[in-house]
């Protein structure tokens, strides 16, 4: 095993641990809707929510980094360059996450001055991390870029997947710089903030996970490089073609010119189309391999990624992306429902698949299967679909009562929040959240034990 892959396992461990922190914070944030008095004046809802969504970004990012550190040396036949600094960056990132989480939990907020920006909270959703930590994340991404580009240069080799990855790292780094300035004009601030949030999630991350899935498919199914790279180019072109200007669907109501209504609506309406192609591709691959591979959990999580991405981003997204609908739905639990489903489908499932692939090799397991992963797979996916469905009901109640009937007044907001439809959705969301958490516990148990206690040396079905 390459040294880079040992670092990857550390990243995966941190990612899965943070996945758990995200779930705990999410459950707490969900419970505030059921009992708003809980932890009153001790631990605010906003802090729980910040932890939930910021840790979401960090665990996925760590999963992506781990995946690249895992596949890169095998892809280029060369140990990753600059591993010493990469290891330091890993520990710096972990320490920064711990310190920032501690500040969020125990300090929570500060006064409106530069000190708060630098050391407590920058105050912009998803990038609340104080400025020192944001600079730290920037440095870690730079180290990551150096590792990837340096390895390709030293190996004197570049593959299609690595080329796409390197090109993608430039905007991945550059866009994060938007988290640093504190712009006082809210429209201008949101304009650029969406560049960061949307272009990461619906452009650079899509390309990154596309590269990771391409590498994973070659290892998992033995798919030929030419096939994988051809599809990577096509899917990246389609995703970027629709995703970049799909940015416009965030510009509908923030004070930007009216033409964004047309641009945003048009391009985001196209976004489900490449996802449909991916679903067809997933069915083809599952048929070619007759739903069998030497790593069944990884195979099923890859399949879940294709379907989850289509339903979460495609179906849920299209429901609310046209401006006439979005006028009522934006900023409600409807959006939250879409966010949960899309993040899970597009990224969460992919990261879990890669973790299983890495464990198979690191534990020298010829055939990976068992029972526990099936329980975690089922509970996590049922829990997630249940949460997304429940949030959709609550969000539709908000759009109906608060926006369409109540005219978006404060009184209508309060009334909508106490409507039975909204509350029942919140109860159901919490229940499915518990189910999701149980699935997570089984996932952790399985990741710790799979290949150590079961299926080692079991008969290997032929992966055709």
């Amino acid at each position, binding site marked *: 095993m390459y040294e880079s892959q040992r670092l990857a396992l550390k990243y995966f461990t941190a990612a899965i641990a943070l996945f758990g922190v995200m779930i705990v914070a999410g459950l707490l944030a969900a419970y505030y809707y059921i009992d708003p008095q809980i932890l009153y004046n001790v631990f605010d809802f906003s802090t729980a929510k910040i932890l939930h969504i910021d840790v979401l970004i960090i665990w996925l990012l760590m999963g992506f980094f781990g995946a690249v550190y895992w596949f890169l040396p095998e892809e280029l036949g060369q140990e990753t360059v600059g591993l010493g600094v990469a290891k330091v960056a890993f520990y710096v990132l972990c320490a920064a996450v711990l310190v920032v989480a501690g500040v969020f939990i125990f300090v929570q907020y500060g006064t409106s001055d530069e000190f708060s920006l630098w050391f407590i909270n920058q105050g912009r959703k998803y990038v609340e991390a104080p400025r020192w930590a944001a600079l730290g994340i920037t440095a870690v991404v730079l180290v990551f870029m150096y590792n990837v580009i340096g390895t390709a240069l030293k190996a004197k080799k570049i593959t299609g997947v690595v080329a796409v990855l390197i090109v993608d790292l430039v905007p991945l780094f550059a866009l994060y710089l938007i988290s640093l300035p504190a712009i006082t004009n809210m429209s201008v601030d949101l304009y650029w903030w969406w560049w960061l949030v949307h272009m990461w999630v619906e452009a650079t991350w899509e390309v990154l996970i596309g590269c990771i899935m391409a590498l994973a498919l070659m290892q998992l199914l033995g798919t030929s490089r030419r*096939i994988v790279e051809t599809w990577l180019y096509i899917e990246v072109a389609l995703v970027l073609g629709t995703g970049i200007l799909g940015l416009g669907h965030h510009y509908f109501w923030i004070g930007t010119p009216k033409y964004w209504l047309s641009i945003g609506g048009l391009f985001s309406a196209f976004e*489900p*189309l490449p996802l449909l192609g991916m679903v*067809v591709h997933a069915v083809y691959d599952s048929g070619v391999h007759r739903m069998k591979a030497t790593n069944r959990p990884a195979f099923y999580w890859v399949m879940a990624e294709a379907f989850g991405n289509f339903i979460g981003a495609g179906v849920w997204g299209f429901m609310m992306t046209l401006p006439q609908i979005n006028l009522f739905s934006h900023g409600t639990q409807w959006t939250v429902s879409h966010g949960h489903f899309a993040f899970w489908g597009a990224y969460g499932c992919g990261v879990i698949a890669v973790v299983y692939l890495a464990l198979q090799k690191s534990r020298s397991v010829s055939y990976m299967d068992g029972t526990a992963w099936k329980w975690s797979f089922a509970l996590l996916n049922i829990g997630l679909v249940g949460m997304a469905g429940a949030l959709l009901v609550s969000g539709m109640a908000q759009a109906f009562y608060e926006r369409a009937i109540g005219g978006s007044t404060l009184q209508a907001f309060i009334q909508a929040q106490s409507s039975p439809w909204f509350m029942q959705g919140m109860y159901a969301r919490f229940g499915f959240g518990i189910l999701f958490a149980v699935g997570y516990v089984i996932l952790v148990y399985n990741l710790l034990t799979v290949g150590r206690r079961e299926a080692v040396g079991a008969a290997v079905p032929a992966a055709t």
Partner: protein
Amino acid sequence: MSSVELLKTAGLLGVLVLFGGGYGVLYAVGRLRRQRSWLQGGYACYAVQVLIAGVLVVTSPLAVGWKLLIVFSVFAYLAIPPVTWRYLERTHHEEGEVYDS
């Protein structure tokens, strides 16, 4: 847009894409298993998708431009599964990875 029209239109837009996905999945399974019943199921999904598009065009309060977009996208949904499948078969065939049902 009234409150009822809002929920009806949004629901139909979601179901429109869902049936497009259903068509894609059933079409692919049908081609994979070479069974007409799956393919017919796929085409039935597509027919429902066309029907939903028709309902949206006729009854929803969406602007004309969005209605045209829905009509265009329904044609795109029709083409994507067979085009993707053909290209998949070709690339896999060229690489010697042929699915044999």
